[in-house]
């Protein structure tokens, strides 16, 4: 008994420094996202992002708010490495996204979980398949897939409906499936782009509470949203964007009106 306890202790001690070592070399202590002076200009028009800088620590919960056209979507696309910055530096989980090789992008994205406003589920498959799909494409051994998927579906409260077609689910349930899919690969960061945009207030709160739980388990959560009520009552860090720049960045912030 005593030995076992010691072993567990040792394991815990081994794990802690290893994690530190991984983040140390490139970024400052425990910083998981570093955006330095980033500008993104599309071929036409004025810059979508104009020299923004943002630092996010491991384990943080951050709201990014702003009107449409403020540059939020561009920022998400840059973080996903769907786009490259025109100038400036983005480092996410130690990957320098300006220099990352094409072949490394899939590996990088496996450490990111992403949730969209329109869920983006595969409509011709059932709940289980939608979550398992994420594990298949990253080549998880089939024996592990079932355990991981079942665990994730229990976490989001959809285990009883694992056989249902996603089209038979409500919006809130669909978003929970999407959340399970985003989390099943155990990402370091969860990126949610307007996750409650298509949901009624009740379901919106359900989703937000799930995200908070996930955050408490150590995952960094970044939520882009319009939902003033939720932002104001959750008292998290709030980054406000307007016309391509960050106009405010507050701990325990609120979603302010422009006027």
């Amino acid at each position, binding site marked *: 008994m005593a030995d076992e306890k010691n072993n567990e202790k040792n394991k815990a001690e081994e794990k802690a420094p290893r994690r530190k070592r991984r983040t140390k070399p490139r970024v400052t202590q425990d910083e998981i996202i570093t955006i330095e002076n980033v500008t993104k200009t599309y071929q036409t028009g004025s810059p979508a992002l104009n020299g923004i800088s943002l630092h996010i620590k491991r384990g943080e919960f951050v709201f990014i708010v702003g009107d449409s056209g403020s540059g939020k979507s561009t920022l998400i696309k840059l973080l996903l490495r769907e786009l490259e910055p025109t100038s400036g530096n983005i480092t996410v989980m130690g990957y320098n996204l300006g220099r990352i090789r094409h072949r490394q992008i899939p590996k*990088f994205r496996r450490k990111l979980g992403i949730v969209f406003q329109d869920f983006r589920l595969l409509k011709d498959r059932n709940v289980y398949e939608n979550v398992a799909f994420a594990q298949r*494409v990253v*080549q998880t051994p089939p024996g592990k897939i079932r355990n991981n998927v079942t665990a994730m579906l229990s976490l989001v409260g959809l285990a009883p409906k694992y056989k249902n077609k996603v089209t038979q689910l409500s919006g809130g349930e669909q978003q929970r499936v999407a959340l399970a899919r985003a989390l099943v690969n155990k990402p370091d960061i969860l990126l949610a782009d307007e996750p409650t945009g298509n949901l009624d207030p009740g379901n919106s709160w359900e989703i937000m509470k799930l995200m908070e739980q996930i955050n408490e388990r150590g995952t960094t959560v970044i939520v882009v949203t319009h939902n003033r009520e939720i932002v104001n009552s959750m008292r998290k860090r709030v980054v406000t964007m307007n016309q391509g720049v960050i106009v405010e960045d507050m701990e325990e912030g609120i979603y302010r009106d422009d006027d």
Partner: protein
Amino acid sequence: MMISTFWYTLGQGFKNLTRNGWYTLASIATITASLFLFGIFYAVLANFQNIVQEAEKGVSVTVFFHKGTTEDEMLALKAELEMRPEVRQVDFESAAAAWEEFKSQYLGEYAEGYGGDNPLEDSSNLQIYMTDVSRQSSLVSYIESVNIVRVVNRSEIAASTLSAANRLIALVSFGIIALLIAVSVFLISNTVAVGISIRSEEITIMKYIGATDFIVRAPFVIEGIIIGLIGSLLPMGIVYLIYRAATDYFSSRFTMLKSFFSFLPTSAFFGNLMLITVIIGVGIGFFGSMITVRRHLRV
């Protein structure tokens, strides 16, 4: 690649076939049609070529010698000619044998009037059969340069007609094959493009989740290969049955044809045809889908 990945990719490839079922069916149908035509042409051309080759076997060059040439010298030339690659066979006919044959064929009992004389004593000759009649004229000019040779008889028209026919067959088959392949590649590429547009959302999701290019692309390529495979096996079955039925019909109806030529049995060419068709079909499927996937999936 892991084994489970292999099965996943294969399974997805098969599922793609059913997901856009009508397009799959349409492209299998068109490839089947293309390769069916190809198969029919191949069978017809194989028979035609066979006829030409049979005819070529009968075309020969006959060499006569100057007076006083010994039989040893003639046989030495025979041996020399047999070494040449374009020469299939050389027959020697001595003057005595020629006279014997002439007597038995045309003179019968009247031949006794000639006693021991041989009026054909200068007619010892070499009969040369070639493997490739298109090289006849160069062979003839070589033989004419040999000093013991008096005259060389040949049929220039037969040789040139046959080699022209051979060239035409090669040209026609090449043209038809090229055309059919181009059409089929276009069609497969269309099917895959449709498949990709239908599944563009799934592909986007896969990319966000962190699927490698390979995992995204492989099901489409497998879909193309399966279409190509089915599209090549199907027409081969049809060609096989039709060929059998048609040759049976013609041989029994037009028995007088038999004196001119006989149809090739399926065993003589079908193995080759099958191999070529499957390679073409799978090749069309592979490259058609590969090109499309590369163009449409910038993953």
